[in-house]
């Protein structure tokens, strides 16, 4: 951190409102001491000079003009002050509050708060970009496990890159929270790009309910994502596999009784009882256990109803049969006795798989996600615990990362959704089994609070809705309230990154994507104009076409005589 000319920012006035704040005074002639900017002061610690970094939280005019001086827009208050004997060039004096982050301890790899504010009168320095780049980011650019997300918002692009720690993200999860149109899918695209760069070669699955990640396909051809072989690693070119909606299948035998109950809603107690009984009997049969069909289930229910006390279950069984047939026999698009997505097809190091779910209804989307998450979790669990698979799935011998778009749809607050339970389990235990989850949501208020708080890294973009702001404030402990106050003011592409993957919460400008962005809003007026022109042109052509003469009495069309 040494070797760069130290730039004085101001002089300490004294402690601030809270124990970790202090106030300094500056004339800020270059106008660089912005909100969110970084400064430092020196302390002596163990016979060493440590640079304690602090972030500017408030900036107030220490010499404010009386309101009357501001009453004439044509007259600068500085001029009036100058007439009254106050030198114009000394007009601006700012009282700046800064929150102490601490000095960065290389050994600990974290900021250590010294609990000593700077002494009144001591100098405060402007933190240079090189110092910040080193202190704020966990990793160096292009290191294994690094992800260059963007640059420090208060600095020029490229001056202070923010490199987040992918190791943390893939083990302790990440949440991307933002209002619609604030760039969350763009940021997710940047994250995926970083995961697919040669220094990460990740195994990624994107659960994409809107089918907007297809542009990632182009990254296989881009030079930025390729690497030649060297002494340590083989040559690399990422793969992107975008599954077709028809390929998204769930093998019936991977469903559990809970999934069935969820897929067959509004069942009576009796129906549930008979379903459970029939299901249990059917899966106890080794012949059917791994390969049952909807008809097998119906048959098993029919065979196991009635029984000992001679009660008449015919109508209940009939209703149940009808429900099962409607979901699993007639509708074979999603559920299949044999076919399903092979985990080894979806998850491969250096492959980004996209699972488009936009052709499925809500419940099917949730069940597809739940079964897949459950299978992947078990495959990782077995691989780590070195157990053999028993359910027909192969183990996954490498960590995996799953990015879930519209996460509030799979883990909603105040609703019992089948995918919520497995998601909670993965978020709680995924670290042990090398399974990372990325949640993307535009409605944090509608996202389960436990799920949100389990994501140890948060990327929070502009949020205007007050309910969503409160949800973020309640579940995201690592971001200070003063940073969260910026939420409505953030522009598109500006993000607060906090939590495990960065050394301290930072305001970051998301970098440009290498691949094209697929989630951009549709330009409706332009589309209307183009469609309208196309329609009127077609109508005009139709109107101008020479009408064919009617058929004769025999019903035969005559050939129009050539003029």
């Amino acid at each position: 951190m040494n070797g760069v000319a130290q730039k004085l920012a101001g002089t300490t006035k004294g402690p601030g409102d809270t124990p970790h704040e202090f106030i300094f005074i500056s004339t800020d002639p270059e106008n660089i001491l912005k909100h969110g900017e970084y400064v430092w002061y020196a302390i002596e610690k163990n016979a060493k000079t440590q640079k304690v970094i602090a972030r500017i939280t408030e900036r107030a005019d220490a010499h404010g003009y009386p309101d009357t001086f501001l009453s004439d827009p044509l007259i600068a208050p500085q001029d009036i002050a100058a007439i009254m004997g106050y030198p114009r060039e000394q007009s601006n004096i700012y009282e700046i509050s800064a929150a102490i982050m601490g000095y960065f301890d290389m050994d600990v790899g974290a900021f250590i708060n010294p609990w000593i504010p700077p002494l009144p009168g001591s100098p405060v320095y402007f933190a240079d970009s090189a110092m910040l780049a080193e202190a704020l980011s966990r990793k160096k650019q292009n290191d294994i496990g690094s992800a260059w997300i963007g640059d420090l918002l208060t600095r020029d692009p490229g001056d202070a890159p923010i490199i987040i720690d992918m190791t943390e993200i893939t083990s302790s999860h990440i949440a991307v929270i933002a209002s619609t149109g604030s760039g969350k899918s763009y940021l997710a695209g940047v994250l995926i790009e970083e995961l697919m760069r040669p220094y990460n070669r990740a195994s990624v699955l994107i659960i994409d309910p809107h089918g907007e990640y297809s542009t990632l396909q182009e990254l296989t051809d881009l030079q930025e994502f390729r690497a030649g072989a060297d002494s340590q690693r083989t040559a690399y070119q990422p793969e992107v596999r975008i599954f077709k909606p028809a390929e998204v299948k769930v093998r019936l035998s991977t469903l559990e009784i809970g999934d069935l109950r969820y897929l067959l809603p509004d069942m009576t107690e009796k129906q549930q009882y008979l379903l459970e009984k029939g299901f249990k009997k059917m899966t106890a049969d080794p012949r059917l256990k791994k390969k049952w069909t909807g008809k097998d289930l119906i048959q098993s229910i029919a065979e196991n109803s009635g029984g000992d006390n001679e009660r008449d279950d015919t109508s209940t069984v009939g209703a149940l049969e009808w429900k099962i047939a409607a979901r699993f026999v007639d509708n074979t698009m999603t559920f299949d006795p044999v076919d399903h997505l092979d985990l080894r097809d979806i998850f491969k190091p250096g492959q980004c798989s996209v699972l488009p779910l936009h052709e499925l209804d809500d419940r099917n989307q949730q069940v597809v996600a739940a079964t897949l998450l459950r299978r992947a979790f078990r495959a990782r669990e077995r691989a780590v615990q070195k157990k053999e698979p028993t359910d027909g799935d192969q183990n996954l011998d490498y960590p995996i990362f799953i990015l879930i778009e519209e996460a509030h749809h799979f883990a909603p607050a105040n609703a019992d959704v089948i995918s919520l339970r497995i998601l909670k389990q993965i978020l709680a235990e995924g670290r042990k089994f090398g399974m990372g989850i990325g949640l993307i949501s535009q409605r944090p208020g509608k996202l389960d609070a436990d799920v949100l708080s389990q994501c140890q890294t948060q990327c929070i973009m502009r949020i205007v809705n007050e309910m969503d702001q409160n949800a973020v404030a309640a579940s995201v402990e690592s971001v200070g309230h003063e940073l969260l106050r910026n939420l409505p003011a953030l522009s598109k592409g500006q993000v607060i990154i906090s939590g495990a993957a960065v050394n301290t919460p930072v305001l970051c400008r998301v970098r440009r994507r290498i691949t094209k962005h697929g989630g951009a809003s549709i330009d409706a007026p332009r589309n209307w104009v183009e469609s309208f022109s196309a329609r009127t042109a077609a109508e005009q052509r139709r109107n101008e076409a020479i009408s064919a003469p009617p058929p004769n009495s025999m019903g035969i069309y005559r050939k129009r005589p050539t003029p």
Partner: protein
Amino acid sequence: MTLNNFAGAYGNPVGVIVKSDSHIRYWAQIYNENETIAPVDPQEYAFGRYVRVEYPNIAQPRHLIGVIYDSMLLNPSFGALGPRLAADDSQRAIFSPDYLSERAVLIGIIAIGSMEYLANGEPASGSRGKEQGAPSFAVEAGAKVYPLTESEIYAFHFYEDSSETAPALHISYLSQMLSAPFSLLPQAALRILDQLEPMFPGYQRHLKIIRRNILWKQSIEPAR
């Protein structure tokens, strides 16, 4: 009140310093009819007028510049409640003339700076020849007090060598007047703005804002 009302005997003193309360607050006694050939016109020592006071012992011809912010009457017969020989001033002139000669008008002057003068009696030009605010030197008892002419007032406030962006009008002493604990000083400040406004037409908007600021503090804030 306009400046034209001040047209009087240029160069004639109106009184002498008799006392000071501090480095910047002086009392001057206005000449009575026995001390001057022509009686002093009350316009020349009106409230809010600029005055200059000579520094007799300073080599460089320099005057203290002040503003009249207060006045006081001295009357030795005040409180003498016993029987008198004379009933009015015409009789007093015969029976007890000292009663009349000991009456006096005192004016309170607040010092707001100093200004150099050339040998021809004109104020020196340029900002170096003047200082605004508390003056460096005190005047002595007996120093003569002169009313300031329009051109002297202009010279005192006009800093011709100011930079292009900075205003050439300087009223640096205004805050000193407004912060002193005398209720009449803001009133005097308003009077001096009356005099400066026609002199500096380019700064009328600025002066209007300053006036508004004083007026607000004077009239509205006490009522809140």
